[in-house]
């Protein structure tokens, strides 16, 4: 016979294990599990398993970690029926450094401070970020505050009082009743404008690393401006959702937190596969539907460009507008020759450069007017 005291201890210990595995088993949830176990048979492992799973988990991402923690803590296999949850939690493996390599341009003699002081903000706005020295980069980060990535809008189904439009019956009647039955004026309503969802897909592979910091800062500015309607993902060899860390107020903290979440930093790119993962898991369910989707990538594809083309076609059918940002487009003599870009371009509505602050300002304009 197990006493109540023991059950509480066991559950608390299990919750601790689960928190180590990365599931947010808050005290409130643990209390719910204790209550749930109270309604079931404590000695039945299956009952304990389901009681915990229903109360401690909150998304399919949690399920794999829960199973592992359950098996580790209670021993033996987790009593699960059916196939595994389709979504595996992304393991946090590597901490990514956010300082990008300094390009060879910054040569001996000239200290970064000197150059930063000598560079006017206006000049800096147009400089390719890949060629900046650390000092200039620091200066540019300050200029990022000026970026106002306002979201595009669309007509919402919700209505708001207006001068023109359909008659708002409830308001008119309320007014009428207030006046003792005299209708003095018809109240009207019009559709409200709502922020359209913006999805940012950032390529964090090796070939994009000179721009990674800048693009992540851009994503952070966008996510902070409209947290509820902005989604940020990174693409490398796998897809990582960094929307949550991007919502942190401080840009440096947000970038550091996203860096911890991205396991495939500066690796290769399998754009087609990763885009497919995005569409299967998020896009088709609704995230990409009628959204403005911005892909930041140079189009260096290790996989099959045909798959990328196929997935871009799918994306184009779901999204309101597809924008492709290629930092190399800003360079003189650039022609879209890489296989990935050539496969993707037919499905892209706007193809823009994103190599400098001025180019990003232009991008903000493109997105806002979508």
């Amino acid at each position, binding site marked *: 016979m197990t006493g109540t005291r023991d059950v509480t201890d066991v559950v608390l210990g299990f919750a601790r294990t689960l928190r180590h595995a990365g599931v947010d088993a808050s005290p409130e949830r643990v209390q719910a599990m204790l*209550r*749930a176990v109270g309604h079931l048979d404590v000695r039945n492992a299956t009952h304990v398993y389901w009681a915990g799973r229903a*109360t401690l988990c909150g998304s*399919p991402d949690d399920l794999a970690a829960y199973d592992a923690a359950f098996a580790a803590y209670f021993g033996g296999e987790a009593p699960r029926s059916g196939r595994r949850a389709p979504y595996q939690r992304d393991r946090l493996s590597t901490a990514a450094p956010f300082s990008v390599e300094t390009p060879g341009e910054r040569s001996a003699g000239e200290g970064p401070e000197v150059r930063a002081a000598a560079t006017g903000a206006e000049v800096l706005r147009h400089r390719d970020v890949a060629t900046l020295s650390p000092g200039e980069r620091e200066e540019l980060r300050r200029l990022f505050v000026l970026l106002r990535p306002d979201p595009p809008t669309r007509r919402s189904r*919700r209505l708001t009082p207006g001068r023109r439009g359909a008659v708002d019956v409830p308001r008119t009647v309320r007014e009428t009743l207030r006046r003792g039955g005299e209708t003095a004026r018809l109240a009207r309503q019009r559709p409200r404008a709502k922020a359209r969802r913006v999805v940012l897909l950032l390529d964090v592979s090796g070939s994009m690393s000179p721009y990674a910091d800048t693009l992540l800062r851009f994503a952070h500015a966008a996510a902070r401006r409209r947290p509820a309607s902005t989604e940020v993902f990174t693409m490398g060899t796998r897809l990582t959702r960094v929307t949550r860390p991007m919502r942190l107020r401080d840009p440096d903290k947000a970038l550091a937190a996203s860096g911890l979440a991205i396991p495939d930093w500066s690796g290769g790119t399998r754009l087609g596969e990763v885009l497919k993962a995005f569409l299967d898991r998020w896009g088709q369910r609704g995230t990409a539907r009628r959204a403005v989707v911005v892909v930041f990538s140079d189009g260096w594809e290790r996989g099959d460009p045909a798959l990328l083309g196929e997935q871009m076609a799918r994306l184009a059918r779901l999204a309101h507008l597809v924008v492709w940002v290629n930092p190399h487009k800003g360079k003189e003599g650039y022609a879209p020759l890489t296989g990935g870009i050539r496969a993707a371009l037919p499905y892209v509505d706007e193809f823009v450069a994103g190599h400098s602050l001025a180019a990003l300002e232009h991008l903000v304009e493109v997105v806002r007017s979508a």
Partner: protein
Amino acid sequence: MTDSPTALAEALAGVGYLADEGLATVAYLAGEMGRPLFLEGDAGVGKTSLAQALAEIRGVELIRLQCYEGLDVSQALYDWDFPRQILHLRAAEAAGEHDAEELEASLYDRRFLVARPLLRAIESPGAVLLVDEIDRADDEFEAFLLEVFSDNSITIPEIGRVTAKVPPLVVLTSNRTREVHDALKRRCLYHWVEHPSYEREVAILRTRLPEVTERLARDVAEATRRLRELDLLKPPGVAEAMDWASALHLLGAREIDPDRAAATLGAVLKYREDSDRVRELTLAALLR
């Protein structure tokens, strides 16, 4: 009748819903703990039908709130019947009623209130409330649901507070088109509904479509299981398997054959890309 998860599973089976152990346990807990049940899973795995089955075994009407963007209080909660209020006002005036206060009080009487799903669920004891596809509603609406579920009551300014005598059993479903807020999820029991196992799917087909032969049910369940492994844009759910089996049955099939399967493929696959892909892989290979 349903004093354990097993008993609940049996009761559900009695009304034609075959739940696996996990789902039965979680649904049992939802009833016992008075917490909303939050169901996620691929489309067509039986999230909505669970609510229907629960209502059936409790012998109550299922109150359904289909969420969509722009859903607001007057469609989810209650609304005043304005034309009737105006009529009442005119009639009172004609009858020579002049006491303004009394007139006003009579205007905001319960009989002029049109109860929408949430208020109906609070007012009818032991009801089963299905909030379908919560992810389609705006996030403001979630905060509002949270308020209703936290103390099972609704405050109507003109009338006062309406509290549920027996709290309703609430089932929320989501297709994950966006992430539902943690605050709402924390108050719920979470369950990810999976596609049924082969044996369970056969049993479901046999229970829901008694006219279909055992052989056809097994063939359809097997073919559907293989389709799910193909990494399609929209893997078929139980609902699609049932549609397929009944389509084949209507064509007089007693077992699956390539010709009839090809002709009825539209019942299981809802994307042209998926159908093309399956045709390429040749149906024959799929059907053993």
